[in-house]
């Protein structure tokens, strides 16, 4: 039985004159991996920020596990922003301690294991890491939580192919039937194989919501190819 981890109904968000989201409704179920796909500026990040409380809706509702977004919902949501957002004066083990301090569902052991598998030394100061390694550390911290909803905003923007494979692999390995993963990206071909369902969003509206299997069998083409058609300039 799949729980509905996130539900939007009639969600609107206005940003100083602009309508970033228009009448968005969607349901995110546990045990599935979703792709939130759309061109830049389509509202993907706005939707994600509404889900983790960085923004409040102008109208409509967004519920996480049946509750309004707030301190409780944040305990259940693990968020990977599209930029590196960690305090760079800390050493890696201090960052792990930080996450451990604030999140009950954080699994420090898992984090250390993942660090080791990437040959990263936990005593290293975060600011001395390369950009790619910083992003990996941030991913490790986010994925070491046993959350109900993982929101990954452009996890593969600007990373090398090996790192990209590592990220996809990590998402698959951490799959749990109790949790949902939402990956927001405009690089679809990289991620298509691991998605259950996709939501196409354009100019603030959901224009398509379906399973990858259906899209491929109905259209005889990949989601990436369909996307290019749908969003042709």
């Amino acid at each position, binding site marked *: 039985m799949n729980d509905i981890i996130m539900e939007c109904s009639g969600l609107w968000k206005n940003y100083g004159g602009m309508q970033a989201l228009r009448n968005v409704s969607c349901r995110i179920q546990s045990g599935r991996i979703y792709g939130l796909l759309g061109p830049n500026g389509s509202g993907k990040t706005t939707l994600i920020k509404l889900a983790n409380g960085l923004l409040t809706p102008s109208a409509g509702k967004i519920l996480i596990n049946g509750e309004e977004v707030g301190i409780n919902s944040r305990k259940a949501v693990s968020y990977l922003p599209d930029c590196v957002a960690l305090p760079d004066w800390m050493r890696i083990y201090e960052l792990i301690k930080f996450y451990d301090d604030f999140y009950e569902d954080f699994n420090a052991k898992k984090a250390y294991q993942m660090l080791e598998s990437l040959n990263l030394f936990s005593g290293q100061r975060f600011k001395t890491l390369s950009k790619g390694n910083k992003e990996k550390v941030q991913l490790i911290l986010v994925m070491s939580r046993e959350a109900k909803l993982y929101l990954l905003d452009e996890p593969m923007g600007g990373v090398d192919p090996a790192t990209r494979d590592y990220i996809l692999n990590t998402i698959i390995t951490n799959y749990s039937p109790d949790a949902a993963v939402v990956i927001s990206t405009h690089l679809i*071909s990289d991620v298509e*194989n691991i998605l259950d369902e996709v939501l196409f969003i354009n100019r603030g509206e959901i224009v398509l919501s379906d399973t990858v299997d259906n899209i*491929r069998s109905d259209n005889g083409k*990949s989601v990436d190819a369909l996307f290019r058609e749908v969003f042709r300039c």
Partner: protein
Amino acid sequence: MKWSFDHDRPIYTQIIEQMKLFIASGEYRAGEKLPAVREMAQEAGVNPNTMQRAFSELENAGLVFANRTSGRFITEDINMVEKLKEELASEAVRSFLDSMKRIGYDKAKTIELIEKSIEERGDDKDE
């Protein structure tokens, strides 16, 4: 196991096809224990649900069976494997013959070509 997927068809159908090949070719032996769904999904780079769906269908087809406690196994039924080989072989032949017809080779030329090619490859010298 080497997996390779086309982008324009559902992955689960492709998993089923490739599993059939692995079984027919003996890469997965009859009765062999399969790794967990998640591990196989990781290896193939696909969603665990997709892998699960493919396996449900393979179970329905009788090629794979699941033991509640010990996991998933390839069928031990050798006849089943033979039948599978026949099925795959027939399909390959049908598809080949369609191509030959399209190119315009008649039966005699086709058979000649087959014999020549087998000799050149030295395939009949193995086993």
